[in-house]
């Protein structure tokens, strides 16, 4: 605990300063470039977009803190969404939600077991899971689109409470909950210890393998939650749901200052990262840049964010 408290200021200052400057610059640029940007309607749109991106990146953040990666979040999101959609479209909302969480949990536990107990590098294990989940999603949907969910379920993605979109409120709750888990529980501090030095963490007697399985399971389940919110928002699900979300999720985590080397970062950073990405996407739309360029922007942002992380990491060591 002492170590992590001592190390926090350098990280936090660097992340908060650079990212706040980034957000301010983006907002200023967009406000100058288009008069429609600084309207209440548009800001609500940006916040909702940011919330959706945060939900996908939240579980991934925990995995990255342990020094791993989960490349299957987008595919697991899609599979969970497809399975849930079949139940929910027939009115069985509770069953659908439970099925989605079960799918996420199962994929996550398999990922975690492969990484922690079998000893496969996390990017290989979760890359395999990406294609397994993706293929199963295709098989399950058989090329069809399910749409038209009950209004009560759609509220989760498209509704408003006190003028705020529900996904924003869900994201806000999740930020608080995960922040508490990361910084005030033994489990959370163990994640930083594993990411900082896995061997040392094991030698102190922490159940590192069990913690790793829990982390990947959480990542899978949070991806499933994100899938539920996504299909509630667009009122439809097909096997392609979530396909393009992997790059943005990694971009949000990296932009938020969580180091790919593990042991440093936090959930608040990922929230800021998601906000930056939402601003970039919204700005590109406002400026009339074709959506086909968005994957290019995400790829470039991932590379630049990690480049910054790597050079910062080098200067400190």
């Amino acid at each position, binding site marked *: 605990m002492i170590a992590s408290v001592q190390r926090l200021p350098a990280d936090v200052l660097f992340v908060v300063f650079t990212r706040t400057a980034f957000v301010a610059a983006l907002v200023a640029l967009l406000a100058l470039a288009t008069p429609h940007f600084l309207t209440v309607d548009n800001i609500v749109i940006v916040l909702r977009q940011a919330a959706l991106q945060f939900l996908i990146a939240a579980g991934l953040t925990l995995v990255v803190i342990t020094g791993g990666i989960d490349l299957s979040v987008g595919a697991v999101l899609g599979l969970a969404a497809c399975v849930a959609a079949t139940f929910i479209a027939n009115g069985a909302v509770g069953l659908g939600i439970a099925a989605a969480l079960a799918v996420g949990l199962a994929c996550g536990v398999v990922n975690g077991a492969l990484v922690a107990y079998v000893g496969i*590098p996390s990017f290989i294990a979760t890359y395999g899971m990406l294609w*397994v989940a993706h293929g199963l999603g295709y098989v399950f949907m058989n090329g069809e689109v399910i749409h038209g969910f009950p209004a009560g379920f759609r509220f989760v993605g498209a509704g408003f409470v006190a003028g705020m979109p529900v996904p924003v409120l869900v994201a806000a709750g999740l930020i608080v909950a995960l922040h508490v888990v990361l910084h005030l529980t033994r489990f959370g501090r163990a994640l930083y210890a594993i990411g900082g030095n896995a061997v040392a963490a094991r030698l102190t007697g922490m159940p590192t393998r069990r913690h790793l399985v829990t982390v990947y399971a959480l990542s899978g389940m949070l991806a499933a939650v994100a899938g539920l919110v996504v299909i509630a928002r667009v009122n439809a699900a097909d096997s392609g749901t979530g396909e393009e979300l992997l790059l943005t999720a990694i971009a949000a985590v990296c932009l938020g200052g969580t180091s790919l080397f593990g042991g440093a970062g936090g959930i608040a950073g990922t929230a800021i990262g998601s906000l930056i990405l939402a601003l970039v996407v919204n700005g590109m739309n406002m400026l009339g840049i074709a959506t086909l360029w968005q994957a290019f922007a995400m790829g470039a942002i991932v590379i630049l964010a*990690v480049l910054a992380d790597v050079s910062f990491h080098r200067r400190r060591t």
Partner: protein
Amino acid sequence: MTTAAPAAVLRSWRMPDVPGAAYLVVILVGVFATANADFLSARNLGNVALQAAALTILSLGMTLVILTEGIDLSLGAVLGLCGVVAAILLVSYGASLPAAMAAAMLVGVTAGMCNGVLVAYAGMPPFIVTLGMYGMAQSLAMVLTSGNSVTGLPPAVRWFNEGSWIGTPVPILAVLAVFGATWLLLHRTRFGRYIFAIGGNRHALELAGVRVRVWLVAVYAYAALLAALASLIMTARMNAAHPTIAIGLEFDAIAAVILGGTSFEKGRGGIGGTLLGAIAIAVLRNGLNLIGLSTEWQVAVVGLVIVTAVALDALRGRV
């Protein structure tokens, strides 16, 4: 029985020095030959070989990258971009075939060098660099084509798929040529010895005064150059270039490399095994097609095969 028992059995089981792909090929051929009489027909086996050509070329480049303890997730997207660039030059700008080929290779080498520089000089994890490149290359290919196929290619392009020389189809010749060149590169040049050594002990190599970073850039550039070559064969086969044609082919390539016995650690492996691995994947996909399993299932099955292969490798490798 404890839970550790299966792992212990696997560890004590000394397999002869043959990559897992060899067993898999034998098993798959046996299963599919029994399940479907057409499988062993000359026509179908010829099809398997042609289908495997692009994958094999991609896998050979991937082998070198994995030998250096890296990975290249961008190869499928880069392949798509190269094919699209060559096709657009041919169709819209009336470029000659050699000029279009050169342009595709230039695009490939540029993408590969960007990957290599970011990995070697910036010290970024290979899977992140190449995932970013995947996004950028795919996006560029989509922007260039507005997401459509490029059709109306000059008939000369089809030579890359239908042509033959001394009774051997061009795609097979291309595979043999690339295999030969890569084998010579790995086993008869300093570059090849450095590739194994980078995976084995990069730090020691650096201390010995070898400019490891330059060679690493060359490895990523070579892999992407082979992707450009594979794009020509694939474009000729489809008689069109599509921006997302090869998305996911890098996954088959990784599976081929791992099945072929190349390990993610310590620079162990080689391209002979990769050739077998690519054949195993091609046989698997062809056989699944023949017995009527949809492409969607195939994605899941190949995913399971790769995870199982890596898991077995990891369990056997640990002491």
